[in-house]
Structure formats: structure tokens, C-alpha cells
């Protein structure tokens, strides 16, 4: 078994080193006046409130970073990917902690395991309402519970909600390839290991809509692109 793994590792390293796959990276900017952060009060659920020491928590639907960029934008290759990609064996983890989802936006591959964890000593339910995949709704009444789920079809985006705490929301981008990224608190994203070719890249934001760009990358190239979202009035 160990042997097999090392052979696979070696092989993938070699193919990575020699194929010289490209990278697309950049930032997502926000133009205009940043909206006032929306604050969530958890007063009605005394347990959640206590975890946050009675303080309000800032909603993550529109997060404008200090440097004027946008957080939680899902950037992925919409068109142009050829070939089949197998999902990695390690699961994506969606954690519920402090009556909050971590992370708020994430990507996952078709067939890849999603592990939903409850790190709170209280009930959450994971209510996913996809359109193309099968919806599901799982209750996790106790701390430390884990549930697993896999998606069968690519779908942008699958919403998650906790009905017990209606403010809890998360989004998953389900793709049949690994070329996606989510912007961080500097607004940066990075899609690695792209084979040379021409791609349509889309940036998706839950409140501000989507934007696309077409890029062509050569072997070994690192391409930098930029998206700019405006607040819709």
C-alpha cells in the first residue's frame, strides 16, 4: 500500500513538474461605497449568544475587505475544461461553530465527500436546497456529530441553511473539476494546475451576481486577472 502511494505521488510530482501547468490568479475588487455591515443578534438563542459573549456578529453576505476587495467570491472555470478529474479522497469540511458556518463559501467536487460537523452543544440542521442535486436536511442535535454527503451533479451554487438559526447560510460550488477558488480577506484567488488552453472564468457572488472573462494560458504561464463588482441599486 505504502509503495503504491509513493509511486502515485512520484508520478504526480513528475507530471506536475514536466507538464508545466498554468495558474490563473488575481483579486476581486469592489467599487463604490461599501455597504454598512449587517449585524446579527443571536439574543433569541441564549446558547449561541453566550458563545459570542452577547456580542453581535457581522453577516458575511457582503464582506468588503480593508483593501477594497471582496471576500467570499467563488471564482471557477466555467467552460473549457477537457478530460475527467477524479475527486480527492479527503473530505471538504463544513463546520458549524458559534452558530455560524465555516467557511461561508466553498468549492467541492462531484463525488467528493462533504463532512458537516457540529462543534456547538446545540441543535443545528443542515438544510441544503440544490436545484439539480437531491435536497437534504439533516439534524445534528449534539456536539461533535458528523454527517457526510456527496453531490452527483455540478451545480452553481448549492445553498445551505440552518433552520434553527435562520441567519446561518453557506454556499457550495459543485464542479466536476478542481479548478476553483474562493477569495480570501485580501480579495485574492488562485486557480492552479490548469492545462494550457482557453477558458471562461466566472466569479460568483451571492448578492452581487456573476461576471465572466475569457483567458488563454500557455504551459507554465501565471496569468493575473481582475474582477470588479459594483453594488447593485
Amino acid at each position, binding site marked *: 500500500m505504502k509503495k503504491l502511494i509513493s509511486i502515485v505521488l512520484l508520478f504526480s510530482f513528475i507530471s506536475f513538474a514536466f507538464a508545466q501547468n498554468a495558474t490563473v490568479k488575481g483579486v476581486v475588487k469592489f467599487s463604490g461605497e461599501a455597504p454598512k455591515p449587517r449585524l446579527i443578534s443571536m439574543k433569541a438563542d441564549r446558547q449561541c449568544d453566550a458563545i459570542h459573549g452577547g456580542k453581535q456578529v457581522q453577516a458575511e453576505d457582503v464582506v468588503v475587505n480593508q483593501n477594497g476587495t471582496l471576500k467570499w467570491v467563488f471564482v471557477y472555470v466555467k467552460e473549457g475544461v477537457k478530460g475527467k478529474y477524479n475527486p480527492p479522497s479527503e473530505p471538504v469540511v463544513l463546520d458549524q461553530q458559534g452558530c455560524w458556518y465555516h467557511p461561508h463559501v466553498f468549492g467541492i467536487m462531484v463525488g467528493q465527500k462533504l463532512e458537516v460537523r457540529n462543534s456547538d452543544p446545540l441543535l443545528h440542521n443542515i438544510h441544503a436546497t440544490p436545484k439539480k442535486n437531491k435536497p437534504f*436536511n439533516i439534524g445534528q442535535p449534539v456536539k461533535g456529530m458528523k454527517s457526510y454527503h456527496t453531490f452527483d451533479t455540478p451545480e452553481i451554487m448549492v445553498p445551505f441553511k440552518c433552520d434553527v438559526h435562520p441567519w446561518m447560510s453557506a454556499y457550495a460550488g459543485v464542479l466536476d473539476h478542481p479548478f476553483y477558488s474562493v477569495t480570501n480577506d485580501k480579495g485574492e484567488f488562485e486557480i492552479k494546475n490548469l492545462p494550457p488552453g482557453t477558458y471562461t472564468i466566472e466569479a460568483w457572488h451571492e448578492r452581487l451576481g456573476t461576471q465572466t472573462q475569457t483567458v488563454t494560458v500557455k504551459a507554465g504561464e501565471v496569468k493575473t486577472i481582475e474582477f470588479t463588482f459594483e453594488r447593485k441599486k
Partner: protein
Amino acid sequence: MAIHTEHTEVAHKQSFITKYIFSTDHKTIARQYLITGIFWGVVGMILSWLMRLQLAYPNQPMPILEKILGKWAEGGILKPEFYVALITMHGTIMVFFLLTAGLSGTFSNYLIPLQIGARDMAFPVLNMLSYWVFFAASVVMLASFFIQTGPAAVGWTFYPPLSALKNSIPGADLGATLWLISMALFIVSSLLGALNYITTTLNFRTKGMSMGRLPITVWGMFVTAILGLLSFPVLLAGAVMLIFDREFGTSFFVPSGLVLGGQPVPHEGGNPILWQHLFWFLGHPEVYIVAIPAFSLVGEILATNARKPLFAYKVSVGAIIGIGALSMIVWGHHMYVSGMNPVLGEVFVITTLAISFPTAILVFNYLVTIWRGNLRFTPAMLFALGFLGLFIPGALTGAFLATAPVDIQLHDTYFVVAHFHFTMATSAAFGMFAGVYHWFPKMFGRMMNDKLGKLHFWGSFIGVYLIFFPMFFQGIAGVPRRYYAFTEYNFTSQFLGLNKFITIAAFVAGAAQLLFLFNFFWSIFKGKKADKNPWKATTLEWQTDSPPPHGNWGPETPVVYRGPYEYSVPGAEEDYIPQTVPVKVETK
């Protein structure tokens, strides 16, 4: 159940299949109902254990649960969505499959032809069909346990929109569809049965068996059948409408403008309260469809074992008819806080209090029946007495719930859970047990073990009180029913300790049921052979062989000369005079 004495059989050749499986003989069909009912009783009981485990040990992983239930108890924690499925299936199975089909199906089929001196039902083929449709309903209901989204999980009352929107809870998906299909089949089966019971009772009585000489059991089954015929079609209509709402986008029960889990719901113009009216229009009579047969079996068994005539037979029959009639106009007492027109609420208070009138008469008559009797404690008799002991607190607590303002506080709390488990659930189960112990010798030609039966009784009687009596106080303190755990509120968490106690009692009572199961199946094969009339009873079924031959009687059907309960008639030699004994023989 392969004991069937052939010698008096009226020239009739049968293969194994026509005799035991697709049989048209009412006695075989009755036994099929009984065995299926017992199967469902076991399932319902196991479900109640799972609920009780959860309530006693919330948040405590029990690895064994994961072994049994798989993903419904990941990490040994029973899921809340599965708890809701448990209450739904437990309620449905117990009310419909055990105490409607199992109870009425068994004893209407078995007793009506035998006690009125008929050779079989009016429509034997229809009768067979009725069982097999019920069997199909059972298969569908059972299948729903094994599907991905789990069995129905919206409460046995199936209130929409929860039951109408497939996304509201996993059990509202395919599980609910199967539930509706199964219930539709079930209703068809009940209607076929009811039609048969009514026609048979009216037209197939033997010579001399006037309506005034019918045993109270036959009266009970007869009134029950009429109730079923009047109320079940309404639920069938409701179920079909709900299926349409779910599958074909109609909106009988779903109003416009709903948003479920953040997603808009594409329905418009329905009214959820309409379902509650349709459901309870059946649902309340259903309580009496369960209770009246139990009551009537108990009456018969009390008289036989007190060696006394049933006190005021005519009044008791009148009371049963009165209960049946009134039960059709009290359904609104389930809906005092539903948002129904409050004026209706006041009307239903009055009709509901009115129904306590015939009920009180019946209980009183039964008590007088054992007064100055010469009581014989067979297991059947103990269960009949236990029935009274359980029904009394059930009926009395009905007075609280009937009073609309008090019901504001008690509605949908554990007070209701305790109330209906006493009035209709466990008391009817006791009635059924009494019936099984009493007629077992006739049905299977063998006796059940007496000692085990008595042990079963005491385990059950004490167990039931310990389980359900404390629940009255949980309800008074405000604990709502259908709660997955009592951990979330101050006024519920005071009962966490009591819940452990109740759960232990539930397992003790459950262990007593194992005694019954063993006794039942063991006695079918190994019990002592039964005489024709082991209880020295007066009614017709005891005057033929045990078990009766195909066609029930020899070449001639019996002739009836007197009423059903001629026990301890002064001057008579024995303390009972069968209905078939001509009056002139009596030494007066």
C-alpha cells in the same frame, strides 16, 4: 395454527392455499387479522421503546442504536427527524393497524357469524379481499421504513402544510407518499370489512336471534362498522386531495405565499384547517372505532366471568349507539386553538360533554355487573377489569380537555398523550388482550397458559400506570408533546429524571408483552386441548366445537330461545343457560 378438526366438515375439500392463505372462511380470516395485528403490535412497541430511550437519555450516544438504525442514529445519537418518524409510525401503526384492523378485523370476523348463528359472512370473497387489501397496506407501510428518506414523519394526524410540502422534513418526502397510499388501501379494506359486518348482522341471524338477543359484542362491532362506513370515506377523500396537492400541484390545503427554508412555495389559495376538519371528522370517530369493540368485548367477558347478566343490557346497547352517534359531532374539540371559528369551539364543548353521558352509563353498568357477582379470575377477566381500571382515568381527564379554556393550556401537551393512552390506546389494547385470552380456545382449539396470562396482566397493568400516570403531571407543567428532548426549556428539563423512570417502566411493561407472545405461539401448538365451552358461557359460539368446523355448525344452524346473558338465573340447575336451550326446559 394448523389445528383444525376436520370431522364435522360439511363436504368441502380445500388445498393448503385455499384453507390457510386465500381462505374465504371468516375464522381463518380472523386469525390472519389477529396474527398480522400482533405483528404490528410488536413493531409499534419496539418503536415506542426507541422513543422512550431517546427521551430518557437525550444527547447520550448509544452505539447499539447505530447498529440497528444506521444513519438514523449516526454516532449512536437518534436523529430528531427520525424521532418524528417514530412517533408518526408508532401512532399510525397502533391506532390503525393494531387497534382497528387487528382488533375489529379479528373479532368482527370471528364473532359476528359465530355469535349470530351464521355459517359465514354475507360476502366471503369480499371478506378475503378485505384482508388482502389490508395486507397490501401493511406491506407498503412496512416498506416505508427501508427507503432513503425514511418513513413518514409529520405526526399521525398528518397536518399540512408540513405533510404537503415534501421539503419540510425528510419524512415528508417518499415516506409520506407511501403512508398516504397505504392509508388509502387501509381505508378500502376497512370499508369492505364494514359492509360485510353490517350486512351479515342484519341478514344472517339464525332463527330466534332477534336484535334484542344479540350479544353486546355483536352490537359493538355492528355500531363500529357503521361508524367506519360513515367516517372513513371522508379521510379517504382527504388523503386523495393531499396526494393531489403533493404530486399534481393542486392547492387544497396549501395557501399562497409560503416560504419554506428560504425558498418560495408554488401553491396558492388552499386552507390548512380544512384538512384538520376532514381528518378529525374521521379521527374522532376513529377513537371510538377503537374503543367500542374493546368496550363490547369487555362487557361480554365481564358478564361471563362474573356469572351475572350484563346489567341493563338494553341501556348499555343504547349507550353504545349513543356514543357512536355523538362521536360524529365532536371532532372540533381537537381544534380549539387551531384558529377555527371560536363560536364553533363553544358548540363542540357542549357536544363533547354530552358524550360523557353515555360513556358514564356504560362504565356504571359494567361496575354493577360485577357487583355481587361470583367472579372468576381468568386472564381474560383480569384484562377486562384492567380495561375499566385504565379507562376511568382516561375518561375523567377528557373533561379537562373538553373544556375549551382549559384546553388552551393542555392542548398538545403530555396531558393529551397520557389521556389518550389511557382512554383509547392501552385500554383498547387491554380489551383486545381480554378478547384473545377469552376466545383463544375457540379459535385454536387449545388453552393458553393461565399463570403466564396473569403475570402478563399484572406486568402490563402496573407498567401502564407507571408509564402514563406521571405524564399527566408533565402535561400540567406544560411539556408539549412530540418533543425530541426535554432539555431545552426550564419547564421541561425538570422532568429529565422522571423520564428515565418512565422509560424503565416501559421496558418492564414491554417484557410482560414477551410473556404474551410466548404464551400465544406456544399454546397454538402445545396448549392443553380445549373443550367446547371451557368458560361455561351462554352465547352460540360456545355451543359448537373448538375450533368450529368449516361452516361453523353441523347440518343445522342453531336456534336461539333466549337472551345472551342468562347467568345465575334463580332456580336453574347450573349457573348459566345457553341461548340454544328452549325456555320450557328451564325449571321455574
